[in-house]
């Protein structure tokens, strides 16, 4: 298992990069752009074989940031292609990410129904 301080360092660094992108580039960069950018970057790095070493180094520090979600999608797709060929390219990603996406929709919806906007 990955030591906690490595998760802290890797996860913190990934978040720091996001903060620097927001602070030092165009003001049009919203949190939404950061999420889209991270999931895409994680998926691409994973396709190039560069994200897996980061996961081995930082554990949850690499899987908890949204780039880790992109990595999960690409890993699922690559596994799917290996097992089912072309069909796997379409089914693998959602299979791998199913729990996270379902949880986000279900918990997101329930919370939005139960609570009211603050401020």
């Amino acid at each position, binding site marked *: 298992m990955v030591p906690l301080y490595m998760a802290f360092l890797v996860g913190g660094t990934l978040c720091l990069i996001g903060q620097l992108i927001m*602070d030092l580039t165009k003001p049009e960069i919203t949190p939404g752009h950061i*999420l889209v950018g991270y999931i895409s970057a994680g998926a691409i790095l994973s396709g190039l074989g560069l994200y897996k070493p980061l996961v081995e180094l930082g554990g949850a520090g690499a899987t908890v940031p949204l780039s880790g979600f992109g990595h999960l*999608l690409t890993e699922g797709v690559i596994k799917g292609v290996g097992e089912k060929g072309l069909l796997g*390219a379409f089914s693998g*990603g959602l299979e791998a990410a199913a729990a*996270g996406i379902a949880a986000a929709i279900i918990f997101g919806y329930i*919370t939005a129904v139960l609570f009211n906007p603050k401020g």
Partner: protein
Amino acid sequence: MVDEKKLNEIEIQEYSSLVQRVNPKPQVFKHSVWAFVAGGLICVLGQIINNSLILQGMSNGDASASTAVILIFLAALLTGLGYYDELAKYAGAGTIVPITGFANAIVASALEFKREGYIFGVGARIFAVAGPTLVFGFAVSTLIGLIRVFVAS
């Protein structure tokens, strides 16, 4: 004379506040520290959950997926209670980049459009930010899969 001195003082104050606004460096540093520490701690929490699930006999893949589910649940709840957005004011990307930020984006945009109803208000707006994120995630990863299928064959 006195008035002129006062005027000068005000000018100096205005000038220094203008400099602080125009020169972003101290803010960038403060934001960076906050983002690094908050984001790092969220990941440490994820690692602790992940490790304890593995110790209970779960496989690596299942533990990682369960960790994501638990973090999403916590972030959704804290967003509903209003605490997550309070933290986000200080922590910036430290609360956006982790998967908890994805859950926060879902709940926050759903809450914002609650008055439009539970089906086409909450049900649709839940994907205001999550939708583009998933579209690009799937587009990129599926494309990588297609490249592998056609390059390999």
